Protein backbone atom coordinates (compact mmCIF):
# COMPACT_ATOMS: atom_id res chain seq x y z
CA UNK A 1 0.00 0.00 0.00
CA UNK A 2 1.40 3.37 -0.90
CA UNK A 3 0.22 6.83 -0.18
CA UNK A 4 -0.62 9.78 -2.35
CA UNK A 5 -1.00 13.39 -1.35
CA UNK A 6 -3.91 15.37 -2.64
CA UNK A 7 -3.58 19.10 -2.18
CA UNK A 8 -4.86 20.46 1.09
CA UNK A 9 -5.76 17.06 2.54
CA UNK A 10 -4.30 14.23 4.55
CA UNK A 11 -2.22 11.76 2.55
CA UNK A 12 -4.56 9.26 0.92
CA UNK A 13 -3.74 5.57 1.02
CA UNK A 14 -3.61 3.98 -2.41
CA UNK A 15 -5.21 0.56 -2.40
CA UNK A 16 -5.58 -1.89 -5.22
CA UNK A 17 -8.21 -4.51 -5.83
CA UNK A 18 -6.81 -7.47 -7.71
CA UNK A 19 -8.14 -10.66 -9.20
CA UNK A 20 -6.48 -14.10 -9.30
CA UNK A 21 -7.67 -16.67 -11.82
CA UNK A 22 -6.57 -20.26 -11.25
CA UNK A 23 -6.08 -21.60 -14.75
CA UNK A 24 -6.01 -25.14 -13.37
CA UNK A 25 -9.66 -24.79 -12.49
CA UNK A 26 -11.07 -22.65 -15.31
CA UNK A 27 -13.21 -24.82 -17.56
CA UNK A 28 -14.05 -22.10 -20.04
CA UNK A 29 -17.74 -22.21 -19.23
CA UNK A 30 -18.00 -18.44 -19.86
CA UNK A 31 -20.29 -17.97 -16.85
CA UNK A 32 -18.12 -15.03 -15.86
CA UNK A 33 -18.42 -13.55 -19.35
CA UNK A 34 -22.18 -13.89 -19.36
CA UNK A 35 -22.53 -12.67 -15.75
CA UNK A 36 -20.78 -9.49 -16.81
CA UNK A 37 -22.75 -9.13 -20.03
CA UNK A 38 -26.12 -9.60 -18.35
CA UNK A 39 -25.24 -6.88 -15.86
CA UNK A 40 -23.39 -4.33 -17.95
CA UNK A 41 -23.42 -4.74 -21.72
CA UNK A 42 -27.02 -5.08 -22.86
CA UNK A 43 -27.70 -1.48 -23.85
CA UNK A 44 -27.42 0.18 -27.24
CA UNK A 45 -24.05 -0.19 -28.84
CA UNK A 46 -22.95 -2.84 -26.33
CA UNK A 47 -24.19 -5.93 -28.11
CA UNK A 48 -20.75 -6.89 -29.40
CA UNK A 49 -18.87 -5.95 -26.24
CA UNK A 50 -17.46 -8.55 -23.88
CA UNK A 51 -15.82 -6.79 -20.94
CA UNK A 52 -15.01 -10.24 -19.57
CA UNK A 53 -14.05 -12.85 -22.09
CA UNK A 54 -12.53 -16.32 -21.87
CA UNK A 55 -10.19 -17.25 -24.69
CA UNK A 56 -8.70 -20.59 -25.58
CA UNK A 57 -4.92 -20.38 -25.52
CA UNK A 58 -3.01 -20.72 -27.78
CA UNK A 59 -5.45 -18.83 -29.97
CA UNK A 60 -6.14 -15.54 -31.65
CA UNK A 61 -8.60 -14.54 -28.97
CA UNK A 62 -10.62 -11.38 -28.84
CA UNK A 63 -10.13 -9.04 -30.52
CA UNK A 64 -8.67 -11.25 -33.21
CA UNK A 65 -4.87 -11.41 -32.86
CA UNK A 66 -4.85 -8.91 -30.00
CA UNK A 67 -1.37 -9.91 -28.90
CA UNK A 68 0.07 -8.37 -32.07
CA UNK A 69 -1.70 -5.03 -31.68
CA UNK A 70 0.93 -3.17 -29.71
CA UNK A 71 0.34 -0.69 -26.94
CA UNK A 72 1.81 -0.68 -23.45
CA UNK A 73 5.23 0.70 -22.68
CA UNK A 74 8.40 0.06 -24.66
CA UNK A 75 10.70 -1.66 -22.15
CA UNK A 76 13.81 -0.21 -23.79
CA UNK A 77 12.78 3.44 -23.99
CA UNK A 78 10.14 3.66 -21.26
CA UNK A 79 7.98 5.53 -23.73
CA UNK A 80 4.44 4.59 -24.71
CA UNK A 81 4.39 2.03 -27.49
CA UNK A 82 2.06 2.97 -30.34
CA UNK A 83 -0.76 0.51 -30.69
CA UNK A 84 -3.54 -0.45 -33.05
CA UNK A 85 -7.15 0.35 -32.30
CA UNK A 86 -9.03 -2.92 -32.83
CA UNK A 87 -11.72 -2.52 -35.43
CA UNK A 88 -15.32 -3.59 -35.14
CA UNK A 89 -14.52 -6.53 -37.45
CA UNK A 90 -11.59 -7.59 -35.31
CA UNK A 91 -13.81 -7.77 -32.26
CA UNK A 92 -16.54 -9.41 -34.31
CA UNK A 93 -19.66 -10.73 -32.69
CA UNK A 94 -22.80 -8.74 -31.97
CA UNK A 95 -24.49 -10.71 -34.69
CA UNK A 96 -28.00 -10.21 -35.94
CA UNK A 97 -29.83 -13.51 -36.11
CA UNK A 98 -32.71 -14.66 -38.30
CA UNK A 99 -35.13 -15.21 -35.43
CA UNK A 100 -38.25 -14.36 -37.40
CA UNK A 101 -37.34 -16.77 -40.16
CA UNK A 102 -36.65 -19.65 -37.78
CA UNK A 103 -39.52 -19.16 -35.35
CA UNK A 104 -42.24 -17.68 -37.53
CA UNK A 105 -41.11 -18.28 -41.09
CA UNK A 106 -43.03 -21.49 -41.58
CA UNK A 107 -39.94 -23.30 -42.85
CA UNK A 108 -40.76 -26.45 -40.85
CA UNK A 109 -37.41 -26.54 -39.14
CA UNK A 110 -35.40 -26.23 -42.31
CA UNK A 111 -34.07 -22.80 -41.40
CA UNK A 112 -31.65 -22.64 -38.51
CA UNK A 113 -30.32 -19.77 -36.46
CA UNK A 114 -27.20 -18.30 -37.93
CA UNK A 115 -25.44 -14.93 -37.91
CA UNK A 116 -26.56 -12.72 -40.75
CA UNK A 117 -24.17 -10.98 -43.08
CA UNK A 118 -21.08 -12.11 -44.97
CA UNK A 119 -19.26 -15.16 -43.67
CA UNK A 120 -15.86 -14.08 -44.88
CA UNK A 121 -13.60 -12.84 -42.06
CA UNK A 122 -16.33 -13.56 -39.52
CA UNK A 123 -15.09 -13.47 -35.92
CA UNK A 124 -16.52 -13.38 -32.42
CA UNK A 125 -15.43 -13.51 -28.79
CA UNK A 126 -14.67 -17.23 -28.58
CA UNK A 127 -14.55 -18.07 -32.27
CA UNK A 128 -11.46 -20.27 -31.94
CA UNK A 129 -12.62 -21.89 -28.72
CA UNK A 130 -11.09 -25.32 -28.06
CA UNK A 131 -8.92 -25.28 -31.17
CA UNK A 132 -5.68 -24.92 -29.24
CA UNK A 133 -2.41 -26.10 -30.70
CA UNK A 134 -0.22 -29.15 -31.12
CA UNK A 135 -0.73 -32.43 -32.92
CA UNK A 136 -2.68 -35.45 -31.66
CA UNK A 137 -2.09 -37.11 -29.22
CA UNK A 138 -0.23 -34.13 -27.78
CA UNK A 139 -2.60 -31.32 -28.63
CA UNK A 140 -3.07 -28.83 -25.83
CA UNK A 141 -4.92 -25.75 -24.75
CA UNK A 142 -6.16 -23.99 -21.64
CA UNK A 143 -8.65 -21.24 -20.94
CA UNK A 144 -7.62 -17.69 -20.18
CA UNK A 145 -10.26 -15.37 -18.70
CA UNK A 146 -9.44 -11.76 -19.59
CA UNK A 147 -10.79 -8.45 -18.40
CA UNK A 148 -9.53 -4.94 -17.85
CA UNK A 149 -6.48 -5.30 -15.64
CA UNK A 150 -7.05 -2.00 -13.81
CA UNK A 151 -3.33 -1.50 -14.24
CA UNK A 152 -1.08 0.26 -11.78
CA UNK A 153 0.55 2.20 -14.66
CA UNK A 154 -2.65 2.62 -16.62
CA UNK A 155 -1.47 3.72 -20.06
CA UNK A 156 -5.08 4.24 -21.11
CA UNK A 157 -5.39 7.00 -18.50
CA UNK A 158 -2.20 8.63 -19.76
CA UNK A 159 -3.29 8.44 -23.41
CA UNK A 160 -6.72 10.02 -22.91
CA UNK A 161 -6.68 13.70 -23.93
CA UNK A 162 -9.90 14.62 -22.15
CA UNK A 163 -9.17 13.06 -18.77
CA UNK A 164 -12.27 10.90 -19.04
CA UNK A 165 -10.35 7.95 -17.61
CA UNK A 166 -9.18 8.07 -14.01
CA UNK A 167 -7.71 5.54 -11.58
CA UNK A 168 -9.41 5.60 -8.20
CA UNK A 169 -7.05 5.80 -5.22
CA UNK A 170 -9.35 3.88 -2.87
CA UNK A 171 -9.42 0.68 -4.87
CA UNK A 172 -7.28 1.16 -7.97
CA UNK A 173 -10.17 0.68 -10.37
CA UNK A 174 -9.77 2.48 -13.69
CA UNK A 175 -13.09 4.11 -14.51
CA UNK A 176 -14.39 6.31 -17.29
CA UNK A 177 -16.71 9.29 -17.24
CA UNK A 178 -18.86 8.82 -20.33
CA UNK A 179 -20.06 12.42 -20.09
CA UNK A 180 -16.49 13.49 -20.81
CA UNK A 181 -15.37 10.73 -23.18
CA UNK A 182 -15.21 12.00 -26.76
CA UNK A 183 -14.64 8.56 -28.26
CA UNK A 184 -11.10 9.44 -29.33
CA UNK A 185 -10.02 5.83 -28.69
CA UNK A 186 -6.37 6.54 -27.92
CA UNK A 187 -7.04 4.39 -24.85
CA UNK A 188 -7.88 1.46 -27.12
CA UNK A 189 -4.63 1.93 -29.00
CA UNK A 190 -2.57 2.31 -25.84
CA UNK A 191 -3.97 -0.69 -23.97
CA UNK A 192 -1.70 -3.69 -24.65
CA UNK A 193 -4.46 -6.10 -23.62
CA UNK A 194 -7.08 -4.65 -25.96
CA UNK A 195 -9.80 -4.95 -23.32
CA UNK A 196 -11.38 -1.62 -24.13
CA UNK A 197 -14.34 -1.69 -26.51
CA UNK A 198 -16.09 1.06 -28.45
CA UNK A 199 -19.77 1.88 -28.39
CA UNK A 200 -20.52 3.00 -31.93
CA UNK A 201 -24.03 4.14 -30.97
CA UNK A 202 -23.11 6.38 -28.05
CA UNK A 203 -19.65 7.20 -29.36
CA UNK A 204 -17.80 6.37 -26.14
CA UNK A 205 -15.17 3.80 -25.25
CA UNK A 206 -16.17 1.29 -22.59
CA UNK A 207 -14.48 -1.38 -20.48
CA UNK A 208 -14.82 -3.45 -17.31
CA UNK A 209 -15.74 -1.20 -14.40
CA UNK A 210 -14.71 -3.68 -11.72
CA UNK A 211 -18.39 -3.90 -10.81
CA UNK A 212 -17.72 -0.78 -8.75
CA UNK A 213 -21.34 -0.29 -7.64
CA UNK A 214 -21.23 -3.80 -6.21
CA UNK A 215 -17.79 -3.22 -4.67
CA UNK A 216 -19.09 -0.07 -2.98
CA UNK A 217 -21.95 -2.12 -1.50
CA UNK A 218 -19.61 -4.87 -0.32
CA UNK A 219 -20.65 -7.27 -3.08
CA UNK A 220 -18.03 -9.15 -5.10
CA UNK A 221 -17.76 -8.53 -8.83
CA UNK A 222 -20.18 -10.64 -10.83
CA UNK A 223 -17.44 -12.60 -12.57
CA UNK A 224 -16.08 -13.76 -9.22
CA UNK A 225 -19.36 -14.41 -7.48
CA UNK A 226 -20.88 -16.33 -10.40
CA UNK A 227 -17.91 -18.57 -11.21
CA UNK A 228 -19.14 -22.13 -10.66
CA UNK A 229 -15.63 -23.56 -10.65
CA UNK A 230 -14.33 -21.48 -7.77
CA UNK A 231 -11.57 -20.45 -10.14
CA UNK A 232 -11.28 -16.77 -9.32
CA UNK A 233 -10.39 -14.76 -6.22
CA UNK A 234 -10.82 -11.06 -5.58
CA UNK A 235 -9.43 -8.90 -2.82
CA UNK A 236 -7.08 -6.09 -1.91
CA UNK A 237 -3.47 -6.73 -2.80
CA UNK A 238 -2.33 -5.28 0.54
CA UNK A 239 -4.57 -7.52 2.64
CA UNK A 240 -1.85 -9.79 3.95
CA UNK A 241 -4.29 -12.36 5.26
CA UNK A 242 -6.32 -12.52 2.09
CA UNK A 243 -5.82 -15.15 -0.61
CA UNK A 244 -5.03 -12.60 -3.32
CA UNK A 245 -2.05 -11.22 -1.41
CA UNK A 246 -0.85 -14.67 -0.42
CA UNK A 247 -1.10 -16.12 -3.93
CA UNK A 248 0.56 -13.10 -5.57
CA UNK A 249 3.04 -11.81 -3.00
CA UNK A 250 3.62 -14.52 -0.40
CA UNK A 251 3.66 -17.71 -2.47
CA UNK A 252 4.37 -16.03 -5.81
CA UNK A 253 2.34 -18.50 -7.84
CA UNK A 254 -0.14 -16.01 -9.25
CA UNK A 255 1.52 -14.14 -12.08
CA UNK A 256 0.66 -11.13 -14.26
CA UNK A 257 -0.07 -11.62 -17.95
CA UNK A 258 2.45 -10.06 -20.35
CA UNK A 259 4.24 -8.15 -17.61
CA UNK A 260 6.74 -6.87 -20.18
CA UNK A 261 4.01 -4.55 -21.50
CA UNK A 262 4.91 -2.44 -18.49
CA UNK A 263 1.46 -1.44 -17.31
CA UNK A 264 1.47 -3.33 -14.00
CA UNK A 265 -1.72 -5.39 -14.49
CA UNK A 266 -3.73 -6.29 -11.41
CA UNK A 267 -5.29 -9.46 -12.76
CA UNK A 268 -3.09 -12.45 -11.94
CA UNK A 269 -3.06 -16.06 -13.05
CA UNK A 270 -2.05 -19.32 -11.43
CA UNK A 271 -0.49 -21.02 -14.46
CA UNK A 272 -1.92 -24.28 -15.73
CA UNK A 273 -0.26 -27.60 -15.11
CA UNK A 274 -0.57 -29.82 -18.15
CA UNK A 275 -0.96 -33.52 -18.83
CA UNK A 276 2.27 -35.25 -19.79
CA UNK A 277 3.21 -35.76 -23.41
CA UNK A 278 2.67 -39.16 -24.97
CA UNK A 279 5.57 -40.79 -26.79
CA UNK A 280 5.12 -42.40 -30.17
CA UNK A 281 4.59 -45.76 -28.55
CA UNK A 282 1.91 -44.15 -26.36
CA UNK A 283 4.02 -44.41 -23.25
CA UNK A 284 3.87 -41.37 -20.99
CA UNK A 285 6.74 -38.91 -20.89
CA UNK A 286 6.29 -37.73 -17.32
CA UNK A 287 9.08 -35.18 -17.64
CA UNK A 288 7.52 -33.20 -20.47
CA UNK A 289 4.22 -31.34 -20.07
CA UNK A 290 1.98 -31.06 -23.10
CA UNK A 291 1.77 -27.29 -22.78
CA UNK A 292 5.26 -26.17 -23.83
CA UNK A 293 6.91 -24.35 -20.92
CA UNK A 294 8.29 -21.77 -23.31
CA UNK A 295 4.75 -20.91 -24.39
CA UNK A 296 3.72 -20.32 -20.79
CA UNK A 297 6.86 -18.26 -20.26
CA UNK A 298 5.86 -16.07 -23.23
CA UNK A 299 2.65 -15.23 -21.37
CA UNK A 300 3.62 -15.19 -17.72
CA UNK A 301 7.35 -14.61 -17.77
CA UNK A 302 10.23 -16.75 -16.48
CA UNK A 303 8.69 -16.95 -13.00
CA UNK A 304 6.14 -19.39 -14.42
CA UNK A 305 8.54 -22.31 -14.15
CA UNK A 306 9.05 -21.78 -10.44
CA UNK A 307 5.33 -21.29 -9.92
CA UNK A 308 4.51 -24.56 -11.65
CA UNK A 309 7.22 -26.38 -9.72
CA UNK A 310 5.88 -25.01 -6.46
CA UNK A 311 2.37 -26.07 -7.37
CA UNK A 312 3.53 -29.56 -8.22
CA UNK A 313 5.54 -29.72 -5.02
CA UNK A 314 2.59 -28.77 -2.86
CA UNK A 315 0.39 -31.31 -4.61
CA UNK A 316 3.03 -33.97 -4.01
CA UNK A 317 3.18 -33.00 -0.33
CA UNK A 318 -0.55 -33.49 0.04
CA UNK A 319 -0.51 -36.76 -1.91
CA UNK A 320 2.07 -38.01 0.57
CA UNK A 321 -0.20 -37.21 3.48
CA UNK A 322 1.09 -33.76 4.28
CA UNK A 323 -0.75 -30.46 4.49
CA UNK A 324 -0.53 -27.38 2.26
CA UNK A 325 -1.91 -23.98 3.18
CA UNK A 326 -1.38 -22.93 -0.43
CA UNK A 327 -3.42 -25.79 -1.86
CA UNK A 328 -6.17 -25.32 0.71
CA UNK A 329 -6.37 -21.70 -0.44
CA UNK A 330 -6.54 -22.69 -4.09
CA UNK A 331 -9.16 -25.35 -3.48
CA UNK A 332 -11.31 -22.77 -1.63
CA UNK A 333 -13.27 -25.24 0.52
CA UNK A 334 -15.34 -22.32 1.69
CA UNK A 335 -16.70 -20.40 -1.27
CA UNK A 336 -16.73 -17.05 0.53
CA UNK A 337 -12.94 -17.21 0.81
CA UNK A 338 -12.86 -16.33 -2.89
CA UNK A 339 -14.68 -13.06 -2.35
CA UNK A 340 -12.22 -11.17 -0.16
CA UNK A 341 -14.02 -8.56 1.93
CA UNK A 342 -16.88 -8.42 -0.60
CA UNK A 343 -19.14 -11.05 0.92
CA UNK A 344 -22.47 -9.20 0.92
CA UNK A 345 -25.19 -11.17 -0.83
CA UNK A 346 -26.72 -8.92 -3.53
CA UNK A 347 -30.09 -10.60 -2.92
CA UNK A 348 -30.08 -9.05 0.52
CA UNK A 349 -29.59 -5.53 -0.75
CA UNK A 350 -32.66 -3.35 -0.71
CA UNK A 351 -33.30 -0.11 -2.59
CA UNK A 352 -31.97 2.75 -0.46
CA UNK A 353 -31.05 0.17 2.20
CA UNK A 354 -27.42 -0.44 1.52
CA UNK A 355 -27.14 2.68 -0.61
CA UNK A 356 -27.82 0.79 -3.80
CA UNK A 357 -30.87 1.42 -5.99
CA UNK A 358 -33.22 -1.29 -7.25
Amino acid sequence: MTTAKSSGSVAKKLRQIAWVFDLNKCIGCQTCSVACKVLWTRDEGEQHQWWMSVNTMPGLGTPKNWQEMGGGIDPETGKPRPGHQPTREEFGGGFDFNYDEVFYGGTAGKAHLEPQGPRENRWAMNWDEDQGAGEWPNSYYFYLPRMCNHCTNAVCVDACPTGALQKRPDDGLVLRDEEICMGDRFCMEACPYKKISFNYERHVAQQCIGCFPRIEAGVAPACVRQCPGRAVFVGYLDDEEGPVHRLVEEWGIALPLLAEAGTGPNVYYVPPLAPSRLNEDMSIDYDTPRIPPEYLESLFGPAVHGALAKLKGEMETVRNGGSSEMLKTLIAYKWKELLGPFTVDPAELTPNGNGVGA
Partner: protein
Amino acid sequence: MKVANVQAGHDLADPRAATWTSIAHESVSLAPVPLRNQPNEYIRTKWADRPYGETPSASVAAASDGERIYLLLEWEDDPRPNGEFQDGAAVLFSSGNSDGLATLGTPTSPMTLWYWEDRRPAPLVLQSSGPGVFRKQGNGNLAAQAGLRDGRWSVVLSGPAAIPPDAKVGVAVWNGTNEERAGLAAVSREWLPLELS
Protein backbone atom coordinates in the same frame (compact mmCIF):
# COMPACT_ATOMS: atom_id res chain seq x y z
CA MET B 1 -16.41 38.20 -42.69
CA LYS B 2 -19.81 39.75 -43.23
CA VAL B 3 -22.73 37.92 -41.70
CA ALA B 4 -25.50 38.26 -44.27
CA ASN B 5 -28.89 39.35 -42.96
CA VAL B 6 -31.71 37.12 -44.12
CA GLN B 7 -35.44 37.10 -43.54
CA ALA B 8 -37.24 34.26 -41.83
CA GLY B 9 -38.47 31.52 -44.10
CA HIS B 10 -35.08 30.99 -45.72
CA ASP B 11 -33.57 27.61 -46.49
CA LEU B 12 -30.03 28.28 -45.33
CA ALA B 13 -29.99 25.27 -42.98
CA ASP B 14 -29.46 23.23 -46.16
CA PRO B 15 -25.89 23.48 -47.49
CA ARG B 16 -27.26 22.95 -51.01
CA ALA B 17 -29.62 25.92 -50.79
CA ALA B 18 -29.19 28.24 -53.76
CA THR B 19 -29.26 31.20 -51.37
CA TRP B 20 -25.72 30.39 -50.26
CA THR B 21 -24.35 31.23 -53.70
CA SER B 22 -25.28 34.86 -53.16
CA ILE B 23 -23.53 35.09 -49.79
CA ALA B 24 -19.83 35.96 -49.67
CA HIS B 25 -17.52 33.02 -48.90
CA GLU B 26 -14.14 33.56 -47.24
CA SER B 27 -11.26 31.20 -47.82
CA VAL B 28 -9.45 30.25 -44.62
CA SER B 29 -5.96 28.79 -44.65
CA LEU B 30 -5.49 25.84 -42.25
CA ALA B 31 -2.43 24.42 -40.50
CA PRO B 32 -1.92 21.35 -38.29
CA VAL B 33 -2.16 21.80 -34.53
CA PRO B 34 1.54 21.49 -33.55
CA LEU B 35 2.67 18.03 -32.46
CA ARG B 36 4.54 19.46 -29.49
CA ASN B 37 1.23 20.78 -28.14
CA GLN B 38 -0.57 17.45 -28.27
CA PRO B 39 -1.68 16.77 -24.69
CA ASN B 40 0.12 13.55 -23.85
CA GLU B 41 3.17 11.49 -24.69
CA TYR B 42 1.18 8.67 -26.24
CA ILE B 43 -0.27 10.94 -28.93
CA ARG B 44 3.04 12.71 -29.49
CA THR B 45 4.84 9.38 -29.85
CA LYS B 46 2.24 7.75 -32.09
CA TRP B 47 2.04 10.72 -34.44
CA ALA B 48 5.69 11.78 -34.35
CA ASP B 49 6.35 10.58 -37.89
CA ARG B 50 2.83 10.64 -39.22
CA PRO B 51 1.40 13.71 -40.94
CA TYR B 52 -1.96 15.09 -39.93
CA GLY B 53 -3.94 18.29 -40.28
CA GLU B 54 -3.06 18.57 -43.95
CA THR B 55 -6.44 19.81 -45.15
CA PRO B 56 -5.07 23.03 -46.67
CA SER B 57 -8.05 25.31 -46.51
CA ALA B 58 -11.74 25.67 -45.91
CA SER B 59 -14.28 28.22 -47.02
CA VAL B 60 -16.71 29.88 -44.63
CA ALA B 61 -19.90 31.83 -45.18
CA ALA B 62 -22.25 33.22 -42.56
CA ALA B 63 -25.85 34.42 -42.41
CA SER B 64 -28.32 35.24 -39.66
CA ASP B 65 -32.08 35.71 -39.46
CA GLY B 66 -31.77 37.40 -36.07
CA GLU B 67 -32.66 34.28 -34.13
CA ARG B 68 -30.11 31.85 -35.46
CA ILE B 69 -26.76 32.19 -37.15
CA TYR B 70 -25.90 29.83 -40.00
CA LEU B 71 -22.29 29.02 -40.81
CA LEU B 72 -21.46 27.14 -44.00
CA LEU B 73 -18.13 25.29 -43.97
CA GLU B 74 -16.75 23.66 -47.09
CA TRP B 75 -13.54 21.76 -47.67
CA GLU B 76 -12.02 19.08 -49.90
CA ASP B 77 -12.65 15.56 -48.69
CA ASP B 78 -9.89 12.95 -48.60
CA PRO B 79 -11.01 10.59 -51.38
CA ARG B 80 -9.79 7.45 -49.57
CA PRO B 81 -12.50 5.56 -47.68
CA ASN B 82 -13.01 6.17 -43.97
CA GLY B 83 -12.34 3.35 -41.52
CA GLU B 84 -13.02 3.64 -37.81
CA PHE B 85 -13.03 7.46 -37.76
CA GLN B 86 -15.27 9.93 -39.52
CA ASP B 87 -14.69 13.38 -40.91
CA GLY B 88 -15.42 16.32 -38.66
CA ALA B 89 -15.37 20.08 -38.57
CA ALA B 90 -15.92 22.83 -36.09
CA VAL B 91 -16.49 26.54 -35.88
CA LEU B 92 -14.31 28.02 -33.16
CA PHE B 93 -15.44 31.01 -31.12
CA SER B 94 -12.83 32.99 -29.22
CA SER B 95 -13.49 33.84 -25.57
CA GLY B 96 -12.33 37.39 -26.15
CA ASN B 97 -8.71 36.47 -25.64
CA SER B 98 -7.15 35.75 -29.01
CA ASP B 99 -4.55 33.34 -27.65
CA GLY B 100 -4.61 29.67 -28.37
CA LEU B 101 -6.16 29.48 -31.84
CA ALA B 102 -3.36 27.23 -33.06
CA THR B 103 -3.90 24.84 -30.15
CA LEU B 104 -7.70 24.94 -29.99
CA GLY B 105 -7.56 26.97 -26.81
CA THR B 106 -5.47 26.93 -23.66
CA PRO B 107 -6.30 26.18 -20.01
CA THR B 108 -6.45 29.92 -19.30
CA SER B 109 -8.11 30.85 -22.60
CA PRO B 110 -10.57 28.13 -23.46
CA MET B 111 -12.64 28.48 -26.59
CA THR B 112 -16.05 27.26 -27.61
CA LEU B 113 -16.45 24.87 -30.50
CA TRP B 114 -19.55 24.11 -32.47
CA TYR B 115 -18.55 20.60 -33.43
CA TRP B 116 -19.94 18.45 -36.23
CA GLU B 117 -18.88 14.91 -37.01
CA ASP B 118 -20.18 12.66 -39.76
CA ARG B 119 -22.47 9.94 -38.34
CA ARG B 120 -22.85 11.58 -34.93
CA PRO B 121 -26.58 12.12 -34.52
CA ALA B 122 -26.24 15.76 -33.51
CA PRO B 123 -23.64 18.50 -33.31
CA LEU B 124 -22.08 19.33 -29.96
CA VAL B 125 -20.97 22.43 -28.14
CA LEU B 126 -17.49 21.78 -26.76
CA GLN B 127 -15.38 23.82 -24.42
CA SER B 128 -11.81 23.38 -25.58
CA SER B 129 -8.80 24.07 -23.35
CA GLY B 130 -6.21 22.66 -25.68
CA PRO B 131 -5.72 20.07 -28.42
CA GLY B 132 -8.39 17.48 -27.77
CA VAL B 133 -8.92 18.75 -24.22
CA PHE B 134 -12.65 18.95 -24.73
CA ARG B 135 -15.63 19.14 -22.43
CA LYS B 136 -19.06 18.42 -23.85
CA GLN B 137 -21.54 21.18 -23.11
CA GLY B 138 -24.55 19.48 -24.62
CA ASN B 139 -26.24 20.22 -27.90
CA GLY B 140 -26.65 23.92 -27.18
CA ASN B 141 -29.64 24.13 -29.55
CA LEU B 142 -27.29 23.51 -32.47
CA ALA B 143 -28.33 21.91 -35.71
CA ALA B 144 -26.26 20.62 -38.60
CA GLN B 145 -26.85 19.46 -42.13
CA ALA B 146 -24.04 18.04 -44.19
CA GLY B 147 -23.49 16.74 -47.68
CA LEU B 148 -20.59 15.28 -49.58
CA ARG B 149 -20.68 16.04 -53.29
CA ASP B 150 -17.99 15.90 -55.94
CA GLY B 151 -15.36 15.26 -53.27
CA ARG B 152 -16.27 18.32 -51.24
CA TRP B 153 -17.94 18.50 -47.84
CA SER B 154 -20.54 21.19 -47.26
CA VAL B 155 -21.72 21.54 -43.69
CA VAL B 156 -24.11 24.11 -42.25
CA LEU B 157 -23.84 24.52 -38.50
CA SER B 158 -26.51 26.70 -37.01
CA GLY B 159 -27.09 27.90 -33.50
CA PRO B 160 -28.46 30.73 -31.40
CA ALA B 161 -27.56 34.09 -32.87
CA ALA B 162 -26.47 35.50 -29.50
CA ILE B 163 -23.01 36.34 -30.78
CA PRO B 164 -21.11 39.31 -29.28
CA PRO B 165 -20.46 42.19 -31.70
CA ASP B 166 -16.66 41.68 -31.62
CA ALA B 167 -16.93 37.98 -32.26
CA LYS B 168 -14.20 36.19 -34.15
CA VAL B 169 -14.39 32.71 -35.54
CA GLY B 170 -11.94 30.06 -36.61
CA VAL B 171 -12.36 26.74 -38.36
CA ALA B 172 -11.02 23.28 -37.63
CA VAL B 173 -11.25 20.22 -39.83
CA TRP B 174 -10.57 16.57 -38.98
CA ASN B 175 -9.82 14.10 -41.77
CA GLY B 176 -11.37 10.86 -40.52
CA THR B 177 -9.69 8.84 -43.27
CA ASN B 178 -6.39 9.79 -41.66
CA GLU B 179 -7.80 8.88 -38.18
CA GLU B 180 -7.72 12.51 -37.12
CA ARG B 181 -9.60 13.36 -33.97
CA ALA B 182 -9.11 15.28 -30.70
CA GLY B 183 -6.11 17.60 -31.19
CA LEU B 184 -5.06 16.04 -34.49
CA ALA B 185 -6.74 18.73 -36.57
CA ALA B 186 -6.15 21.33 -39.22
CA VAL B 187 -7.02 24.72 -37.72
CA SER B 188 -7.28 28.17 -39.21
CA ARG B 189 -4.14 30.26 -38.98
CA GLU B 190 -5.98 33.49 -38.14
CA TRP B 191 -9.17 34.54 -36.48
CA LEU B 192 -11.89 35.79 -38.80
CA PRO B 193 -13.80 38.76 -37.36
CA LEU B 194 -17.54 38.50 -37.84
CA GLU B 195 -19.16 41.66 -39.10
CA LEU B 196 -22.69 41.53 -37.83
CA SER B 197 -25.22 43.76 -39.57
